[in-house]
């Protein structure tokens, strides 16, 4: 089952990357200047994944506090770690593309602030996780922090909106094929995120099992 998912993800990733490189430039109008934005194939799916990880964090947090099953804790921890990876890629690709188009690496613009805080929230979650020893207590505290972190995201989107926006609102696809390539890359990156969460959950589960066997 997992091998199949790995294979499917790989095929889709390679396919969508090939389409992104061959289908020509995606055009976006920004401050009345038309610029090419092929970044959209990587950047936007990453943003979607990073945001989804926070939804999973909320669900896992509530699930753990409700049922006390360690599985929820593993899912929460895995999604925070995967969210960290995707938020890193999101900020890095954004920064690399911002430099040639806006002549700056980073600027306090709403979406940039939001993605930076997403990254910091993931880092804070992971640091918090390493600093507590007792597994039950760690799971509980992390579940609570996951819920608070999720609540922080809409508040963040609301408050960041008051800053001056440099980020473009949307891009225009030249052909239906480009739209299809975008859809395909979104699906492939979502599958990649799912796969990573799955693997991490397994790692955490086995680690907990080994630790409990060692203490006896």
């Amino acid at each position, binding site marked *: 089952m997992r091998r199949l998912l790995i294979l499917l993800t790989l095929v889709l990733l390679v396919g969508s990357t090939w389409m992104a490189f061959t289908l020509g430039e995606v055009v976006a109008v920004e401050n009345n200047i038309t610029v090419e934005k092929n970044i959209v194939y990587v950047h936007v799916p990453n943003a979607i994944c990073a945001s989804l990880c926070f939804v999973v964090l909320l669900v896992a947090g509530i699930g753990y506090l409700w049922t006390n099953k360690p599985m929820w804790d593993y899912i929460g921890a895995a999604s925070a770690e995967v969210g960290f990876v995707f938020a890193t890629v999101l900020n890095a690709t954004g920064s690399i593309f911002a430099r040639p188009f806006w002549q700056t690496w980073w600027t306090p613009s709403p979406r940039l602030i939001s993605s930076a805080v997403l990254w*910091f*929230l993931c880092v*804070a979650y992971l640091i918090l996780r390493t600093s507590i020893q007792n597994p039950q207590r760690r799971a509980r505290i992390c579940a609570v922090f996951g819920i*608070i972190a999720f*609540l*922080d995201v809409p508040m963040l989107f609301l408050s960041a909106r*008051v800053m001056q926006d440099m980020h473009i609102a949307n891009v225009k696809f030249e052909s239906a094929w480009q739209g299809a390539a975008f859809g395909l890359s979104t699906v492939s990156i979502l599958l990649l995120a799912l796969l990573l969460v799955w693997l991490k959950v397994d790692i955490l589960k086995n680690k907990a099992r080994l630790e409990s066997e060692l203490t006896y």
Partner: protein
Amino acid sequence: MNYFFESLWAIFAKDIVTELRSKQVLPTMIVLGMLIVWVMRIVSEAASLSTMMMGPAVLWIAFLFSGLLAQERSFSTEEQEDCISGLLLAPVDPGTIYIAKLLVNIVMLCVFEAVVVPMVFLTFELSIGGKWFEFMGVLLLGNIGISSIGTLFSAMIQLSRVRGALLSILVLVVLMPMMIPAIFALLFLFGVIPEEVAGTGFLALAGSLKTSVGYLVAFDVVFTVACWLLFGFVVQE
């Protein structure tokens, strides 16, 4: 309901009395706040920045960092002689403990503000122009937001090894969204951004004093209620 207020008062008074007797944190907070203000004043002069622009930002930075000291104290003092077990064994709802600790932190920050705000006004040559009531309101709203998050997180990290550093990371990340409207609210109050200009030009989305205050109220309500509900899970053994 009566029982709630009685137990709330008991925990609140206990914490205030311990702080008054030991004088452990409040002096440190005030000195840290004064140092932040003083350093920022020198920096703003060196960088030739407008003091009217810097003042509100410095106020919030001083509150944030000094607030951390008060919040860390909330539960680190309970850990000595295992007081926290006694507190949790007492027949009170954990929510009550949270509200009492929150009130203590708010009061500590208010006392701190009473000293540091005049200092900021003097060193940054700010003038409020009679809007004292609104100014105090905005400060109090910010105060509640900072304390509500800080009190919960202080309980969360009570058994970890790197307590102070961890608390500052968690609190600063989660409070970041609140800082933008908080600073805008003060900029409007000090007249740095005139109300007429708001909503035009590059301030197209900046909102007004009303929207900033509305945001602060929403932030306070959301996080105080969430923290109050989640506190029970944090202290559960």
